[in-house]
């Protein structure tokens, strides 16, 4: 018997394994319990929460195990990249990024219902809908609009989008990516705004210089091609002509170190944080490149990549006299986060130049009726015959202090495509 009962300890071996397994589970629970719990219990738990836009329109709500979105499909689709969904398909939507605030978790009590689980957004869902309609379901692109005096983001649309409430909807390519925040694009001529800002501060006689363009220029034996022949032009005219020759020469004049310093200071190489939602960092050649490449980089080619949200920060700072009100998505009682982005004089001069662009070259009142617009176009050639259409700027209008960025991916000409869309957006924003 003794021999047999001694072998009974083989049962204790299994018991020991069970204890080890339970320990592993408890440690994992401590480590990941929060992620696990919030993954599904969002809509399943008894807690309630709601996302409402600046005009009190409900965009998404859940309570008692039920979850819903806005009533009509267009509103749902247009606002999808703001709300996200209950299943975390879009990682940047508020429903994904704000769970921990709308629904709490701690190891002791598990999931808990937050006291205030209603999130008021700065977004105007109707403006989003209009912007989405203007972009069209077939085009890829990003539309951003904010109030540069408060930082409140009124419009954020990314196309293609998807209806989160329609289980059978077939999402377009990249529909779960928010192009406003999570993507970077070749900037093309909108980048000249940054080169111009650096030149205003770093080249004392920039205003008295003249730039000669005969369609191309040679830097260290490499040709830089321009879109036209602009002949003799001032700095201001060069920006409105969007002259590649002039801005490539300016970039070389500034030198790579200065260019890198400005791109960095303006936050184009950083990841930003829109109320807890991370954005993508852009890029600029920071390792040494020769003058020809530097020239190309000064006009938004080379390895330049730009995040639309980062550009929105730039134009809204220019519009606000060099002071940046950090954009935000949530309407709360907190003061806007304000910082000096660039000297007031630089901002003022850029504003004049951007207004001159619109008045002298972009069709002024005819194309943008009733708008005191300051802007810059961009037609970023991608080398395959297509180009990204950019249009970025702001309204110099105390009643409508809006900064905006419009991008149509492989959309064609900056002014004709993105400019047209921007006009629709701004007219709608001013009308509201």
């Amino acid at each position, binding site marked *: 018997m003794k021999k*047999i009962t001694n072998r009974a300890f083989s049962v204790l071996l299994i018991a020991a394994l069970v204890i080890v397994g339970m320990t592993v589970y408890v440690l994992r629970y401590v480590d990941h319990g929060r992620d696990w719990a919030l993954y599904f219990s969002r809509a399943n738990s008894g807690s309630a929460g709601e996302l409402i836009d600046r005009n009190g329109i409900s965009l998404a709500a859940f309570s008692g195990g039920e979850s819903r979105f806005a009533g009509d499909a267009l509103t749902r689709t247009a606002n999808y990249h703001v709300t996200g969904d209950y299943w975390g398909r879009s990682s940047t939507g508020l429903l994904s990024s704000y769970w921990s605030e709308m629904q709490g978790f701690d190891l002791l009590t598990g999931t808990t219902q937050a006291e205030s689980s209603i999130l008021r957004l700065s977004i105007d869902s109707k403006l989003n809908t209009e912007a989405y309609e203007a972009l069209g379901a077939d085009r890829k692109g990003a539309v951003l609009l904010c109030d540069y005096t408060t930082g409140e983001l009124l419009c954020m649309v990314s196309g293609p989008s998807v209806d989160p409430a329609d289980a059978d909807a077939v999402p377009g390519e990249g529909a779960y990516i928010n192009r406003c925040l999570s993507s970077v694009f070749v900037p093309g001529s909108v980048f000249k705004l940054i080169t111009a800002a650096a030149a205003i501060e770093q080249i004392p006689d920039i205003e008295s210089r003249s730039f000669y363009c005969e369609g191309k220029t040679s830097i260290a034996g490499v040709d830089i091609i321009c879109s036209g022949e602009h002949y003799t032009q001032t700095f201001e005219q060069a920006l409105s002509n969007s002259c590649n020759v002039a801005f490539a020469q300016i970039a070389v004049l500034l030198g790579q170190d200065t260019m890198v310093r400005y791109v960095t200071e303006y936050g184009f190489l950083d990841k930003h944080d829109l109320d807890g939602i991370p954005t993508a960092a852009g890029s600029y050649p920071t390792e040494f490149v020769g003058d020809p490449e530097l020239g190309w980089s000064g006009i938004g080619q080379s390895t330049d990549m730009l995040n639309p949200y980062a550009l929105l920060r730039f134009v809204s700072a220019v519009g606000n006299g060099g002071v940046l009100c950090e954009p935000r998505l949530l309407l709360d009682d907190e003061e806007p986060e304000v910082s000096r982005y660039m000297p007031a004089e630089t901002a003022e001069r850029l504003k004049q130049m951007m207004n001159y662009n619109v008045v002298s070259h972009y069709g002024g009142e005819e194309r943008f009726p009733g708008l005191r617009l300051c802007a810059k176009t961009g037609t970023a050639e991608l080398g395959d015959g297509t180009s990204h259409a950019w249009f970025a700027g702001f309204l110099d209008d105390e009643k409508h202090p809006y900064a905006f960025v419009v991008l149509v991916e492989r959309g064609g000409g900056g002014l004709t495509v993105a400019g047209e869309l921007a006009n629709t957006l701004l007219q709608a924003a001013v009308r509201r």
Partner: protein
Amino acid sequence: MTGRRNFTGKGARCTENYLEFAKAMLAASKFALVLLSAAVLIRCLRSLLSEKLEPEIWAYLRVGRETLPVSHWENTVGQSRSADLRVDRPGIGRVHAVLTRSDRGLWRIFDVFSKGGVWVNGVKVGEQGAPLEHGDVVNLAGTNARFLDTTPEKRGNLAHARTSAGHSISPALTLVDLTLFQLCLLLQHVLSARREELSAIALGFLTLILLQWCCYVAMRLINRSGFEVETLAFYLTSLGMSVAASSTPEDLYKQILLTAAAVALFLFFGWWLRNLRRTALMRVPMALAALALLAVNTAFSEAVFGARNWLEFGGYSFQPSELVKVAYIYVGAATMDRLYRRKNLFGFIAFSAVCVIALALIGDFGTALIFFISFLVISFMRSGSIATVFLAVTGAGLAGFLAVSVRPYIAQRFASWGHVWEDVYDTGYQQTRAMSAAASGGLFGKGAGSGWLKDIFAANTDMVFAMVCEELGLFVGVCMVLAVLVLAFFAVRSARHGRSAYYAIAACAAMSMQLTQLALNVFGSMDILPFTGVTFPFVSRGGSSLLSCWLLMAFIKGADNRRDASFAVRPADQDSGRRPEPEDRKAGRA
């Protein structure tokens, strides 16, 4: 308060007061559940640990001046340190002879292939052994020993000197704790359940309470005081009742009936095990019945979600493999005389192989694995041969590899193991939801009936650990696992005093089965092991599973021979049936 109850009339203030009150009650009951769970477990564990090692004494063997007490019904005699009766004289083998007692009180001695031989009163003992009576002289390879039997009166006196079970920790008080635990569970359900389900739920818990107290009173009436195993089983059954009340309140009456039937069968089976001869005689019929059941299952069962382990039976479906589990242990355990006379395990290995292959054919790989682990434990305890175990593991490894390559859905489970969060809508569907729900309960749970996992398929069976964690909290979830662990420790401890190797092996095999099942259930749903879809002992919903769990408890009761502890063990001063006829004795002696 996330209750589903509708309030009508009465006015808002009244409702508000009620809600406040309900909230406070819920919070209090959550803490109470944890405290009472801990109390039940600690009391059972202490009761088991505080028992002293006091062997029973059945006879004596006097060798020279030394008198060796014979403390089991099956004893090895030899030079080995692990021999029960150690006789260290020249010529005696390590294990020289086996001395057994039947439950009628008849002793026999067997020569275990010794070199020196065994004689009783000068007559050589053959392979079939020879009967032994009080005063007989046993010659072990030249060493004489005198065998001294005990009279029932003497055994009664000896037994009286031992500590009785439940001496230090009162089982009644533990049962009071358990009853309070059940009332707290009931309270939580009352706060969350729909009005039309209230009566069934209340009936369920009250039936449980009634059942356990009836069992207790019945034990006291037959002068038994060991109630730890029943208490722990009732604790787990209460959790199972709670799970059933949350997930399938419409089927609760069936669950109540099955629980009562399970307890009744447990009592019957325990009583059956009292008689070792009867038990051993039924091993072959039991094996045949098990094989027949598996054959019927393989031939006629219906496929339900991959595995064809269900049989429809007049509107009731049941899982034959659950009952085969009990039969398997019943057949697999063996008395020691058999073990030493027939060293090979061939019959048992063949039986095991047929069972496991049949289960694999049915597609019930989880259960096949449980059988296999139990096979390892039984064959190790029977033979002590690491080589056999190693060979079996290698063979099973190959078979498993074959199964994985033949059945794609098993391979898929292995593939998704550890990566369940990468595919929460398909291969990781159940595990991710189980983990999320389990974590959202925190340490104290959302309250019985207030979880969301219960609406997901198989929540109350394969993912039951998550369901308990979600509704009752991680503390209760851990207590649920600990309860099975305490039962396992108890089985191992009881085995040491066991009268017969049969009871020791059966109790240990039963608990290794339960532990394996627990591990596969809990760790499978929590992505620590591949998801196999087996039930948690007692707690998972399912009638056949509950029946088999209670039946397995009878094996543990059979091994528990603390004084006056178990109804499944005869008191030391009672022998079964009639004393043998004089002719039998003569025939035996001839």
